[in-house]
């Protein structure tokens, strides 16, 4: 579905990604793991077209993405749940979800998708009229994911969903990812929490200092010496 | 040779009126220098991130102050000016201290100063029995018997005024240079970039900002007094309120408020613009100069935020830097 070939990107005077290639097939949950500063968030921002790529090509279902405007990606079926959730703090939970369905194609399906999100996250329905800023970290993450789902995306980009959350909350977040995976959503998830994410992912890529160092099925990656030593302390 | 250039320039400028130019060109030069002095005083604050939209208040204190003191109390400007300057400093302090202490910056600061400028204008209009309100006021003439009066600080000779204003203009540039060269300037630039960081390394932000504000206010007050004594007429629109305050902003920005002679260039530019328009189109086309001012201010901010002189200086520095860089490789 999503394919990146030889993508390079960076910020003014500083290159963050070098020659990155990866792909996400329909129905898969693909993890991109790596340490702080490896370029994981940059990778997602490039896919979301918040930053321009300097080289390489991105395609979604065969259609070239490199020049598409960031706000047009939703109509290509890509929804991005940003790092740190980035909810609209003074809008209610339901208003945040409504914003997720802003594009005309999504408005028609608002009611049914809202119901689906509330089924997935019952706590969101309880708190539907609360300002999003008053939710706990875990609830905010669920709201953010729900907001992305409101556009009916084909591909969901999750940027470090466990960041800044307490361990027990992290468990529930990955449980959500596992459930979405089981329901057939296609997910690209970027994470520092390697053990947890590789448990719910189909495949993974290891990103270090802007380059893909390893790739394979989740199980295979977990088994790699490199990862075991450097990240899992084995 | 380069160091002598400014002095040569001053010498030429000083000699200029002796070439026998008519009264009108002399009048233009006087106005240029006078407004240059005022714009320079505004730019002292402006370049350090303190955009005031209320300098008209200080201008008014100076202008109306000397006129009212003379007309109502018979006080010579020699006596009233020190009082007015003290009052100006006080106002600047009273407004500035809370603003800086409470970190009122940017938009909020601009709008608070706007209120100040408007208060000045309103007070003038409200006191119409004394000030003549919107019709303006004229200092009682002391020139009935003589062509000049030192006590009243009125001179009918434009030549005398030229040298007076020239002196103040040079004084203004000197103040600019002193503020520029002092440690205060580096500190204040640091502040305008990142106030908390500056404060954390011990720079007394409030004191520095207050210092520059008071200096700027005092100079503006002087400018107002000069204006009143020269023109022998003041009215609330010309010396207070948002109109003249914005005019100062425009003058300083158009010329380039980060460069010493920038505000002067701005003053010359705006005055010449008004003159050219007047000559080309006659007295009947009201509003064309304002329209063009506005258009130019917009264009300047969009395309040349450093002003004419600022942009020119930057271009000049870039050109000079290139050969050096080339030879370094």
């Amino acid at each position, binding site marked *: 579905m999503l394919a990146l070939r030889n993508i390079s990107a960076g910020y003014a005077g500083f290159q963050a990604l070098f020659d990155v290639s990866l792909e996400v097939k329909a129905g898969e949950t693909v993890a991109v793991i790596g340490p702080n500063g490896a370029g994981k968030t940059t990778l997602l921002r490039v896919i979301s*077209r*918040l930053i321009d790529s300097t080289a390489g090509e991105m395609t979604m279902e065969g259609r070239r993405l490199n020049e598409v*405007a*960031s*706000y047009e*990606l939703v*109509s290509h079926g890509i*929804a*991005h749940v*940003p790092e740190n959730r*980035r*909810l*609209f703090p*003074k*809008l209610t939970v339901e*208003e945040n979800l*409504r*914003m*997720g369905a*802003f594009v005309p194609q999504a408005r028609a399906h608002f009611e049914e998708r809202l119901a689906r999100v509330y089924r997935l996250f019952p706590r969101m329905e309880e708190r539907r009229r609360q300002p999003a800023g008053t939710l706990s970290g875990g609830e905010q993450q669920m709201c953010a994911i729900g907001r992305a789902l409101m*556009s009916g995306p084909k591909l969901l980009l999750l940027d470090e969903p466990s960041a800044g959350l307490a361990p027990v909350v992290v468990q529930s977040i990955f449980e959500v990812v596992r459930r979405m995976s089981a329901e057939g959503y296609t997910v690209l998830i970027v994470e520092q929490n390697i053990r947890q994410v590789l448990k719910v992912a189909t495949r993974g890529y290891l990103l270090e200092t802007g380059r893909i160092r390893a790739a394979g099925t989740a199980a295979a990656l977990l088994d790699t010496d490199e990862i075991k030593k450097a990240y899992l302390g084995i | 040779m380069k160091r002598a250039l400014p002095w040569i320039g001053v010498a030429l400028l000083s000699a200029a009126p002796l070439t026998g130019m008519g009264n009108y060109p002399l009048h233009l030069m006087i106005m240029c220098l006078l407004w240059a002095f005022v714009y320079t005083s505004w730019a002292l604050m402006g370049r350090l*991130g303190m*955009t005031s939209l209320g300098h008209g208040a200080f201008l008014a204190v100076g202008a109306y102050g000397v006129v009212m003191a003379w007309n109502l109390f018979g006080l010579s400007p020699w006596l009233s000016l020190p009082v007015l300057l003290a009052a100006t400093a006080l106002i600047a302090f009273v*407004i500035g201290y*809370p603003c800086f202490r409470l*970190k*009122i910056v*940017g*938009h*909020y600061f*601009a*709008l*608070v100063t*706007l*209120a100040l400028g*408007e*208060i000045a204008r309103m*007070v003038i209009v*409200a006191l119409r029995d004394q000030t003549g309100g919107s019709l303006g006021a004229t200092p009682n003439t002391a020139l009935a018997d003589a062509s000049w009066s030192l006590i009243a600080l009125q001179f009918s000779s434009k030549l005398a005024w030229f040298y007076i204003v020239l002196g103040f203009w040079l004084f203004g540039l000197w103040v600019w240079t002193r503020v520029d060269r002092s440690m205060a300037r580096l500190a204040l630039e640091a502040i305008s970039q990142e106030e908390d960081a500056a404060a954390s390394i011990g720079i007394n932000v409030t004191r520095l900002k207050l210092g520059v504000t008071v200096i700027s206010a005092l100079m503006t007050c002087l400018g107002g007094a000069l204006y009143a004594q020269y023109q022998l007429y003041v009215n609330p629109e010309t010396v207070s*309120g*948002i*109109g003249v305050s*914005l005019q100062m902003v*425009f003058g300083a*920005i158009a010329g380039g408020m980060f460069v010493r002679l920038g505000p002067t260039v701005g003053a010359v530019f705006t005055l010449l613009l008004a003159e050219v328009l007047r000559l080309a189109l006659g007295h009947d086309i*009201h*509003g*064309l*100069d*304002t*329209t063009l*001012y*506005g*258009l130019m*201010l*917009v*264009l*300047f*901010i*969009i395309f040349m935020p450093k002003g004419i002189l600022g942009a020119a200086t930057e271009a000049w520095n870039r050109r000079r830097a290139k050969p050096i860089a080339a030879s370094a490789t």
Partner: protein
Amino acid sequence: MDIFDIFLLEAIVNGVLLGGILALLALGLNLIFGVIDVVWICYAELIMIGMYTAFFLHVDYGWPLWLAFPGCTVVVAALGAALHHFVIRPVLAAEPINQLLVTGGVLFFLQGAATLAFGVEFRNIGVRLPIFEVGGMFLSLARLTAFLIALASMVGVYLFLKRTYLGTAIRAISQDRTTMPLMGVNPSRIFLITSALGGALAGVAACLLVLQYDIHPAIGLSFGPIAFLVCVLGGLGNMIGGFLAAFIFAQFISVGGYFFHLEWGYVLAFLFFIGFMFWRPQGLLGGKS
């Protein structure tokens, strides 16, 4: 004592009516600032242009008021959008003070252009609405109508912002600009629409003011500064704060003008503003300072 009370009461009521208009002005300004983070120093000049538009449509082209007024609103809405697109957009990335100053340039430009186009004579739309008496107080129907329309407009804007997708997007973008594209929203388009809305509110204000005051190219200078101060008093960007501040400010003007001369009412209001700022720099309900 009775007569005193009545006149004071009249001043208070007039203050409330004045507050309505100020609140409308503040609403437009706060909308623009809250969403786009820019202060339109030339807002009053947009209103001035609107007043001339209403005047010409009604007097020269003979449009009835109920057509001229919407016409005026549309024109100023377009002006607002144009202001954003041609003047604000290029400086959105620059220092905030430049954004404020560039609208200062537009202020001069519009004043000058109006002087060129319309001359300096005072004009009046010539519509005289009656003054009526209520319990010993004399109230102007024009003022009352203006108040009601202002109130209606504010309710309309409120509903728009709360109930529609676009309105929600406008509120959202003021809270987090960078996340908007992720929802398929083009921020530039929202800014443009907000600018048009701000312009439309100015247009409505113009219609209301033209019924009560003469038109003159410099009339923006008489209520422009007041509008900003009301906004800052309420907390720049906060629409409810602006609403409250408008009425407080108007009371100072009206009641102050009753006890002293008219201008002193304004001086009092401005002094109150400065004093209030020192007590609470972020304004009544302002969050960020």
